[in-house]
């Protein structure tokens, strides 16, 4: 980043890069913490100076990467409102939703390198919160799957159809049942406010999981 001059620095892209990188780490970590996949496929890595778990299953990794690849343009244009990792039970009813709610930062600015380290600190805090979120959540029933939803703003989808980032990775409108959970409880995990983005993470949890 340091080599870029200010002119080269597209604000939206920088924010989107940072955010997508974070989301990737976060999704891996959620999958690990919520035990969606056997812990055997995860490896310990270091990100934001803290240990994180990352899947080493190539297809899963590819899926996550593709997903985020498609999300990124939306984030760049500030068209994504929420990125939701939905964990569903065998019947494909959501039991947990990890909602990353992204809002424009209160102060738009990139002033210096220190800022990026500040962002990193905030992201680290969020990662740590995710890694301990099992303390506040009930256990999930066995056999869960996951899916990623993106809540877009306004007519972002139409543009998405026009410019498909990855040809064989289309997005579909989410089913109502994926989105809504009956008797959901909301557990805020972490809020961060930095100069380039404002994001909060909360979990919606179904009251009766089994």
């Amino acid at each position, binding site marked *: 980043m340091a080599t870029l001059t200010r002119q080269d620095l597209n604000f*939206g892209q920088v924010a989107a890069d940072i955010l997508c990188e974070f989301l990737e780490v976060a999704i891996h970590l959620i999958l690990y913490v919520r035990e969606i996949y056997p812990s055997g496929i995860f490896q310990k890595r270091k990100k934001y100076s803290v240990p994180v778990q990352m899947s080493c299953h190539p*297809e899963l990794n590819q899926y996550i990467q593709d997903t985020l690849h498609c999300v990124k343009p939306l984030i760049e244009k500030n068209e994504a*409102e929420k990125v939701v990792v*939905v964990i569903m039970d065998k019947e494909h009813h959501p039991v947990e939703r990890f909602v990353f709610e992204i809002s424009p930062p209160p102060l738009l600015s990139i002033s210096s390198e220190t800022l990026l380290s500040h962002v990193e600190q905030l992201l680290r805090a969020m990662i740590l919160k995710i890694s301990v979120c099992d303390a506040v959540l009930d256990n999930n029933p066995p056999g869960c*799957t996951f899916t990623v939803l993106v809540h877009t703003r306004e007519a972002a989808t139409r543009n998405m159809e026009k410019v498909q980032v990855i040809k064989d990775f*289309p997005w579909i409108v989410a089913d109502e049942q994926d989105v809504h959970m009956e008797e959901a409880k909301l557990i*805020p995990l972490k809020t961060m406010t930095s100069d380039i983005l404002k994001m909060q993470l909360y979990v919606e949890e179904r009251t009766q999981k089994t």
Partner: protein
Amino acid sequence: MSRDGWRKKASEDDGWGGRGGYMAAKISKLEEQFQKDAPREKQKDGMSSCIFSGVAIYVNGYTDPSADELRRLMMLHGGQFHLYYTRSKTTHIIATNLPNRKIQELKGEKVVRPEWITDSIKAGRQLSYVPYQLYTKQKGLNFTSVCARGKQDPSSSHEPSKPDLNHPESDSIKPQPSHTQTLSKEVLKSTHANHKANFTERSKHQGSQDTLLTNGYVHPVNGALKPQDSFAELQLHVVDTGSHQSHLPQTESRDREESSCSSAGSKANSHQRSLISTASPAKQPGLHNMQKDLHPKPTFKPGTSAAPQKGNLHDQKRVRLNGSYHMTPNSSTLADSSNQPGRSGQGAEAGIISEFFSHSRLHHISTWRNEFSEYVNSLQSRSRAAGGAVFSGKEKLKKLKANCSSGVRQSCILHVDMDCFFVSVGIRHRPDLKGKPVAVTSNRGPGRVAQRPGANPQLEFQYYQRKQNQYRKVPSNGVDLDLAALSMAEIASCSYEARQADVRNGMFFGRAKQLCPDLQSVPYDFQAYKEVALSMYETLASYTHNIEALSCDEALVDATKLLVELGVTPDDLARAIREDIKEKTGCSASVGMSSNILLARMATRKAKPNGQYFLRSEEVDDFIRDQPVSSLPGVGRSMSSKLTSLGVSTCGDLQQLSISRLQREFGPRTGQTLFRFCRGLDDRPVRSEKERKSVSAEMNYNIRFTQVEEAESFLTNLSMEVQKRMEGAGLRGRRITLKVMMRKPGAPVEPAKYGGHGICDNFARSVLLAQPTDSGQLIAAEAIKLFYAMKLDVKDMRGVGLQVQQLEGSYADPSGQGPSRGRSIKDLLLAKQPAHSPRKDPLAQGQSSVNRTEFFKSTFSSNQERVTPPSSPPSTSSDPMPGTSKGGLHHPHTPNHVRTYLNVSIEVPSPSQVDQSVLEALPVDIRKQVEQSWRHREEQPSTSSHLSTPPRTSSSLPPGPSLGTLVLQLPDQPGQPCTTGIILELPDFSQVDPEVFAALPRELQEELCSAYRNKGNAQAHAQAQGSAVEQKNPFPQLKQPAVGKLKRRYKKRNASPAKKGPSPLKKLFPGNSPAKSSPSKTLPLPLKHRLIHFKYIGCPSSPSIDVPETLSKLNPRPVPTLAGAYEFSDIRTLLREWVTTISEPMEEDILQVVKYCTELVEDKDLEKLYLVIKYMKRLMQQSSESVWSMAFDFVLDNVQVVVQQTYGSTLKIT
């Protein structure tokens, strides 16, 4: 380019259709000729520019250069030349000489000398026309006239850096409400004109979309800001809804009050009175937001009324209202105020401070100094730009003094001081008063007034006399005066004749009248002061630009260079200057000259009156030895008394003291200064601009608090004033000092001077901040902390001052959109901006009131087998799912910003409270404004103070598909290009605030609707939206039963005599009142946009206006705060204090907490909300009082409702 109205009209009429038609055709033809000729002329003459774009001149009478030449110049430099004067189109009249009749006729027009044009061309830019005005009458004290026409005069309104003496306050100071009124009307007019395709001058000149854009965007603002027509209705309406609102206690209390009041007084009075206490909290925010809103900076709502709303205070309040309390400037009525002169609920009325300062005579005059400094600066910069200025006076002198006797030159400073300025200006046109003892004062009677109850002037007089004796060691003259009946109006200035009779400036008029029975009083005449001061400065500037403005009537001139250049003696120069001033102003000036500032000033003393004195360096020693120490700068009463105790009375005595002794007595710096000064040594340079050491605002008139909240709110308002001033000066400071004047124990409660402070003790405390600030909010928080630390009885407060020291320049963007950090990214954003249509920048989008949300997913099953998605044709995928419109609810609560539009009324004291002579002395515009507001008040006695808490916006609607569909139907196709010009500028419908829309006048609504219809949308949506707004319930109402229950319980409990002190929440909250629980602290974004635009309406001809830029600089939502605290640890402390010190929570506090929590939800800071809730749960459920548990349940219920609405699920509280 000139296909404007004239042409159209002419073609419509067949034939000439009378003179109008003929003239119109002729004028338009002439204009066409002009346009045609212009390029030719430009070609001919190599140099051309467009410095006069937007300027249309009309030459009246003989000028030099001639009218033809001026016409050519205007052609060359992008201006317009009108052969016939048209009031609406001609911006400047060029003349060198005008008969009186014409001057009368052209009142309010800009009549400018032709030099303006030539000089501007020389300077290469359009100079401010102000110094070139032909006659000084047009130099108003008021902003209004300039601004109303400002659109045609870029120089005066676009470049705040360029001082314009027509602006009594610099541009950065927020405009007075009245000004907005005028402005909005003006704009309305012009936009209407546009609709008739009768394009006004400016669009003709510019023709660019830029202008159109601004024009069009104005519409919603206009309507909203045009309060007068729809005012009454709307307010009534709002009040109706308001009574359903959350503040049940208030509503009820109002009822109670009303009933009690109606028995006590007239119906109208009671109504109004009740409004003071109940409705005012809702109204005040509106009003003050209005004021603040004009200010594009991120300000938080100034502390609103402190009208106490505590449930358990209602009874007390009521009594007071029936008694003497309601003398607030805003709401007092004639009948009552005359009976109750004693009280004024200062703290209860926010905005009184702005009001006070905007009408304060002293403040006016003191601001002039800065203006003149700026004036001098601008002269200098202009002369630099022009590559050397023309000094007419200097030239004249040069001619006169062809035979020079050049002597030894050393530095020479001239101190020019008008002789008893106010008096000589006041009697300028009254030769009958010349040579008589005259005093300028607001009192014009015989100097006797009836004594008011509670006052004890004798005691005060004795006190002052004692105090004086203590300082001066002068035995009391023992005159036992019948002080009780003497006028306490102070004498601002008195003539030398009066001074001979021992009348002094600052003396009370009554006393002066006794000393000098012939004393004549002259009213204030600010207009004239300004004129005279300006011509004095103009005169000085015609000699040199090395001028330091000291005040409106005195200046320092560094004549060293000038004298060398001219080779004249200082005496010659002084004589020339004095003659010039006398000739131009009719007032005499004295000039003191010497080698430095100190001596020059001392010489002036000797020169006075109407003389000049050159203190030669060889005479200095003798001269200064006899000067009293008090004549040294910096030696005031206390220091001179100290010096007297050291046996020092003259500078000669002082010279005897050693520097070490002085430094021991007075501190190192002061000691050294004294040491030097008493020897006539002074190395201060003549500086055209002085560095400011502190920024402060102080008010010690009419301070009568009855409750802590009033003081708090007053402090908040005062902080806002300080903020305003700091912003005006572009400074931030670290040290905040709170100065308080307290009634001296034993002093009479009511001082002899009405509203005065009487005998007081002064207290001051200060705090050093970690970082410099100019935020009024921060200052207020600190000031309130200081205030509590001082532990004072608010009832005895007589004066409050806030000072900010340790200043440094604020490098914030002058447009004030945020801290400096924002700047670095700005280029970046600007570069990015064009990709979006102007209204669609990401932030605006993020905050737009409608977020249509669509859900997309890609699925992935655990067995790593990609689920083939069902075929999804593009058309279906963009269809929103019914019931998924939750996004519509994500719109943050942005209630009550509309209110702010509605209230443009200014706060003025009731007529009976105003000193008539002062009023008369005020500039015409201000006076009109005041009178108008009285009239207005009389017309709408019942509504003028009505504005209740706003209904909240969509977030309070119950979630469900029905709402969803409504929201989704809203047309929000952004950035679709439109064919007609006007529609092009319409903001995206989703950005139109429905409440603003509802507040628009009907015609405008219809106009807008049709415009949107043209855009391909149906009006029905708008109406649906409008009605949706009406139906919306304020969120707390959802919990109405709960409130009611809680409240009843409280009422029972509160019947017990045990009275509790103010709760910590209240204590800490600046200007606390439950009205604040309406989340109106922040300025909602849409409003801000509009105001930014609104601000530019006055000057749309500026090419520099960049709409996307203004949008991109929009403000973030301010961080939600609870009682001023926003850090979680502070919140926790506050809550703990609240719960542990109070046995029963008060509803207002609970509502405050609920409001805070709601704001947290809106701010998307669920984490903090969660922590706060959990902390409260711990605290409150541990509390022994079950009422706390109930309070928590209440808070939690409310918060859950909000969270449910926003997120569709509730918080998990374990």
